[in-house]
């Protein structure tokens, strides 16, 4: 390899690989924010939604949500760990990410990320601790008499998790409950802030005609809650089905319910949670349509190009995939009487797809037209990676991000079983 080809080999114009330009665009314009930036608000949205679902029980005393509340809280934590990773994957100088914490430049919407994120993480972690403290202490006491290296290790883990607070008297537990309620209460506005702020990152970019709207943060929060509830419900059903399958295969263990009991609990929960899902779905769609109507009615300078993108180039993505398949169809499916678990599963899958498409249409759609308002850019998602960049910003990078929360949840659930019934 000559020096020249060596230089060419490392020379990658970021975005050139997956951007196809049409008509008049500026030379430096490319799709700079790609699928990882779609994953970022999608995952943050799931975090916020899962947390709000658990808080509906802890704060507002919606007792019908008791069983799913514990689970969605832990799941929210697993999602939270993954939420910033798409951003890391996307950075050109990922090794410098700590600068956001070290030298935050507060006029930037991204600068507060570290702080908002850490505060939220602390709230969720401490809430999980208060909810499970009694369980930790009980485990330490139970494992004391058991032999074997596995039990010894487990006991050490639980001892650490108790943080030395072994008091499980009624008075102490009552205090725990109060702490949980308070943390969940603080957590709701912080969760909304965390996600509304992800919306602000886009909504405040005045150079982007599609992104710039004060409605963006609110739209993001609503669709976040929708997607979070849908994912929690979906995962809940899948785990219940798994338990049923295991019971039918291996027989019932002492702490488990019978297969019929599981089935009853399952459909009960599905019906209750889907009510909340419908409510937030209506709010999300209303806001999005309001935004669209307002843009068309006021028809400022950018409307010509926006219209050609919304009603032309991205028509299938926006009106067919997002609004029809992702919103309208699950809405009807959930409203039809006699809701079954299968129908609910299909609906939640469609809702999740719809919210993902909404993020896609905002992030990619916002870069589908040129700053010249006289040209377009098309994004071609890299599927088979042939270098690090096409992996990171391609299909498999995104799938990795989508799969990690489930992996983390699986690990957490080994130590903190959030789906066990008493």
């Amino acid at each position: 390899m000559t020096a020249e080809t060596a230089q060419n080999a490392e020379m990658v114009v970021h975005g050139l690989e997956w951007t196809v330009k049409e008509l008049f665009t500026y030379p430096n314009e490319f799709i700079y924010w790609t699928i990882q930036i779609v994953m970022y608000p999608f995952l943050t949205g799931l975090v916020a939604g899962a947390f709000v679902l658990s808080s509906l029980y802890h704060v507002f005393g919606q007792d019908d949500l008791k069983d799913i509340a514990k689970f969605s809280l832990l799941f929210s934590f697993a999602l939270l760990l993954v939420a910033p990773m798409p951003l890391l994957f996307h950075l050109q100088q990922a090794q410098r990410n700590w600068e956001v914490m070290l030298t935050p430049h507060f006029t930037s919407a991204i600068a507060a990320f570290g702080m908002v994120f850490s505060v939220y993480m602390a709230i969720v972690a401490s809430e999980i601790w208060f909810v499970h403290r009694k369980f930790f202490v009980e485990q330490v006491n139970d494992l004391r008499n058991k032999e074997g290296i596995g039990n010894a290790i487990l006991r050490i883990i639980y001892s650490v998790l108790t943080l030395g607070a072994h008091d499980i008297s009624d008075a102490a537990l009552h205090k725990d409950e109060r702490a949980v309620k308070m943390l969940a209460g603080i957590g709701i506005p912080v969760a909304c802030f965390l996600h509304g702020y992800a919306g602000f990152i886009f909504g405040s970019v005045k150079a982007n005609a599609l992104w710039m709207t004060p409605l963006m943060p609110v739209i993001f929060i609503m669709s976040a809650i929708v997607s979070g509830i849908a994912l929690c419900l979906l995962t809940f059903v899948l785990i219940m089905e798994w338990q049923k399958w295991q019971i039918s295969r291996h027989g019932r263990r002492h702490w488990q319910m019978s297969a019929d009991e599981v089935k009853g609990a399952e459909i009960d929960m599905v019906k209750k949670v889907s009510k909340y899902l419908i409510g937030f779905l209506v709010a999300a769609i209303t806001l999005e349509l309001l935004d669209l109507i307002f843009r068309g009615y006021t028809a400022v300078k950018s409307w010509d190009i926006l219209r050609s993108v919304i009603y032309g180039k991205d028509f299938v993505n926006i009106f067919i995939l997002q609004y029809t398949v992702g919103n309208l169809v699950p809405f009807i499916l959930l409203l039809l009487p006699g809701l079954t678990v299968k129908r609910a599963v299909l609906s939640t899958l469609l809702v999740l797809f719809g919210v993902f498409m909404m993020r896609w249409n905002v992030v990619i759609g916002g870069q589908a037209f040129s700053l010249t308002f006289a040209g377009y850019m098309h994004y071609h998602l890299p599927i088979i990676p042939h270098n690090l960049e096409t992996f990171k910003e391609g299909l498999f990078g995104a799938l990795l991000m989508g799969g990690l929360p489930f992996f983390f949840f699986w690990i957490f659930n080994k130590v903190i079983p959030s789906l066990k019934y008493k």
Partner: protein
Amino acid sequence: MKFSRRELLITAAKGALITALPMGAIKFLEPKEVMAEIKGPGKVRWAFLVDTYKCVGCGLCVKACKNENEVPYDTPVTRTWVERYIIKKDGEMLADSPMGARDGFTENKIRETAVDPKDIAKAFFVPKLCNQCDTPPCVQVCPVGATYQTTDGVVLIDRSWCIGCGYCIMACPYGVRFFHPVHKVTEKCNFCYHRITKGLNTACVDACPFGARMIGNLKDPNDPVTKIVLTERVGVLKSEYGTKPQVYYLGLDENVR
């Protein structure tokens, strides 16, 4: 010693107050404010003047810029570029800037389609570069302060501090920013800051055979650029974004994007 809850709260409040009061007396300064305090009020505000009547679209400025600033020559990204506009008699606007017009406009084809000279109502060239805005949105959105405005108005990038998030690229309404293909951080025109601060012209100004590009100091009333900006009818690009751009154009057409 044991604290009651009441005592603890009172002591904590007192402590917070004692810390907060002197903190209130401290004023946090922007780096450029510090510089201004040290160096005295600025005597320089760099600005650029483009005379679009004089530009012929030869692309020598783009060549010179790429070489001077080490932006890889065969990549489409560039710190400065020239756009060609053709307004047809039926009102249709056609525009292009292939490879940023590095090799000049030598054919009457726009994107493989030839335009019949008889159909053309007017045609002209518009050089573009960073506007070194007075209120730069790119500086506002940088999460780590890696891009900043100097006291003389030029917006610079710290290559050793940029994390490469691309937020500034998104925030610029003029599309002047891109990721440097080698350094992997954001890059843009800085009026050849290494040259102008030594009394030289920018590379593009020196390369232009027709004097279509000029750089000057708006705080010097005798500067040729200042005189033209003050006395003639000049325009700026996309003023509606409130960025207060400092690249002035003579003969700016309403079709220019």
